[in-house]
């Protein structure tokens, strides 16, 4: 009863607050000031033709750099919870599933590549591509434990941080070449953005896969699986 009345109070307050904010939204000046014109005026110098990508990777590239750091941090956060056993496949992949995967995985990688490339002029980009890659990774993880256990330790860590490192490297590098932070050298913007996005896609894919594990993959698993090659752990 007490809980119910408390929730009632919350609903009343929430409705009141939402009403006030709705009023604020309704009173917004439409066609008010925006950065739209400025974005389109400068898009020619951005190295890409898709305005959203131009904002994400050039005009406000610093935001995106930090955003990838945040994604990277999620892995660190999950790992700080301690070691977890790699999730073994619940049951061995059957003939059908294996055959499906053989078609599906290359297709997913290809799709990721396309999305990455398309980002320059159409909706798409590193995150979308990375998400598809991540999906592929999770599929692999669920069916084939050796895949994940093979890359634990430094190759995995390098892949995880590649996106941030390449992005930071380009940002600082362009500063050393005489510009400001993230001020790509003239005519190099397009290619540099592609380099950043490629590294970011890879990293995002791996990060999402690793996040699926939900903790730091135990390195003991690797030695275990190397020793007992071919044999799957029971339960």
């Amino acid at each position, binding site marked *: 009863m007490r809980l119910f009345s408390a929730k009632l109070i919350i609903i009343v307050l929430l409705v009141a607050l939402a009403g006030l904010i709705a009023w604020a939204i309704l009173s917004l000046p439409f066609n008010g000031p925006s950065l739209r014109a400025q974005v389109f005026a400068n898009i020619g110098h951005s190295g890409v033709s898709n305005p959203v990508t131009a904002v994400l990777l050039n005009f406000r590239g610093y935001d995106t750099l930090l955003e990838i750091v*945040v994604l990277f941090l999620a892995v*660190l956060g999950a790992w700080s919870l301690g070691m977890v056993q790699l999730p073994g496949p619940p049951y061995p992949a059957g003939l059908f599933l294996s055959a499906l995967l053989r078609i599906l995985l290359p297709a997913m990688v290809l799709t990721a590549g396309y999305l990455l490339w398309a980002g320059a002029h159409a909706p798409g980009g590193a995150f979308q591509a990375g998400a598809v890659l991540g999906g592929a990774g999770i599929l692999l993880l669920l069916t084939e434990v050796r895949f994940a256990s093979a890359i634990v330790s430094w190759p995995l860590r390098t892949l995880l941080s590649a996106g941030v490192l390449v992005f930071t490297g380009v940002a600082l590098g362009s500063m050393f070449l005489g510009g400001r932070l993230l001020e790509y050298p003239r005519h190099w913007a397009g290619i540099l953005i592609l380099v950043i996005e490629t590294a970011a896609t890879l990293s995002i894919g791996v990060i999402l896969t690793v996040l699926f594990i939900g903790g730091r993959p135990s390195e003991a698993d690797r030695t275990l699986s190397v020793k007992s090659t071919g044999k799957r752990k029971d339960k």
Partner: protein
Amino acid sequence: MVALIPWSVWIIFLPLLTGIFAFLFRGRGAQLGIVTAVGLLPPLIGLTWQVLSCGPQHYSVGGWGAPLGIDLYADGLSIIMLVMTALVGIGTTFYATGYYSPTGETKEKNHQQDPALFWSLWLLLWAALNCLFLSADVFNLYVALEFLGLSAVALVALAGGPSAVAAAMRYLLVSLLGSLSYLLGVALLYFAHGTLSLGLLAESVTSSPASFAATTLMTAGLVMKTALFPLHFWLPPAHANAPAPVSAVLSALVVKASFYLLLRLWFQVFTNTVTPSVALLLGILGVAAIFWGSVQALMAQRLKLLVAYSTVAQLGYIFLVFPLAQGKGTGFSAWCGGLYFILSHACAKAAAFLAAGTVLYGFGHDRIDELAGITQRLPVTMFAFGVAGVSLIGLPPSGGFIGKWLLLNAALAGGQWWWAIVIIIGGLLAAAYVFRFFSRAFSYVEQVPICRDVPWSMELTALALGLSAMALGIIATQPLAVMQIGAPLAGPVLTGGLP
């Protein structure tokens, strides 16, 4: 030439890079930490010099400039926050080299804390703080807030154990709630004014429903993240259960980051929107925080919980800045008082948490009732705690005294004497909870509890931080001069302004 070096970029990217390297090269964390602590000094000195000699500094990332691009901005306020971060950061780094040293395995049972992850997360958190203090773009500040929040949550979780994980979970949810509320405010500001730059918003924000909503949402979110009473419920468990160096950083720096943002918004963007009545509301909550936090600290059974509740109380003081800054001619004094309070509280609280962490490390527990006679075992640590306590109480010659003194003068000169009473009573309450622990720690017992060897770096850093809180009371002129640069308020610094 020195004037042209973009020091702010280095202040952000040095810890960012070393943080990632600490993840890549496991086992090199302590070295990377020390490299960061030492390496940050030149850029920090350089930037301070630039700001002192040329006024506030702008830097356009990507060369686009606001509003299209993102600007970095440094004025006196930023410098104060950056220096505070560096002071506590350097201390924490050296403390952690001892705390995570290979010989001293850490105390938490059934969970192995990972030093490599600590170093990585801590350095990234340092980068996040620097990022936040240097940003001049409200959306970039949102990303920086999340950056900060996630690294802080991960650090709390690092302690392992049910209470730490639960505390981290609650902390994360609160942090997300705060950021999303802030983000909605950012959206409203953008659609109303078409810019995200703090400087341009400052020029265009006027009283309108949208700015009211933005002020409300952003203030509520940030107040939640600053743990103002009665929204403080996440702070004591998170700060008390984290590993010792993390507690110090969280209490000394992380809560100040959201408060810093609040200061920026209130005094630079929403100057036309906020009114004395809403400032009064925050002030009243601040008073409640002082009383409630102190009372809870007085009743706390564990030392780290006592220190954590002390943070709740001390955060109350800095919210008095809002009403006090509304007084005629006392605004700048209140501003300086608040900043001085933040600065000295950072040093003192870090020292107190590090000392408490040393006690926990040495004795394996921090139950106050069972800590009789520990001064006989850890005299340096207890001295550090004492020095920090002097600043928390606000006795001269400590930085805490200067902060309270300026606030007191602002209150008296502005005719708002009731705040002065609160400030004084708050000091007495602080004395009560500090002495409550002291009477226990300093009592003489025959059977001194067993204490394991404590690395000297842990004992000495706590002492150094405590002494720097003291030193802040002696060298008040320089920080006050820095605070003046680019300050949104003007007026005299009232140091003896009795009516």
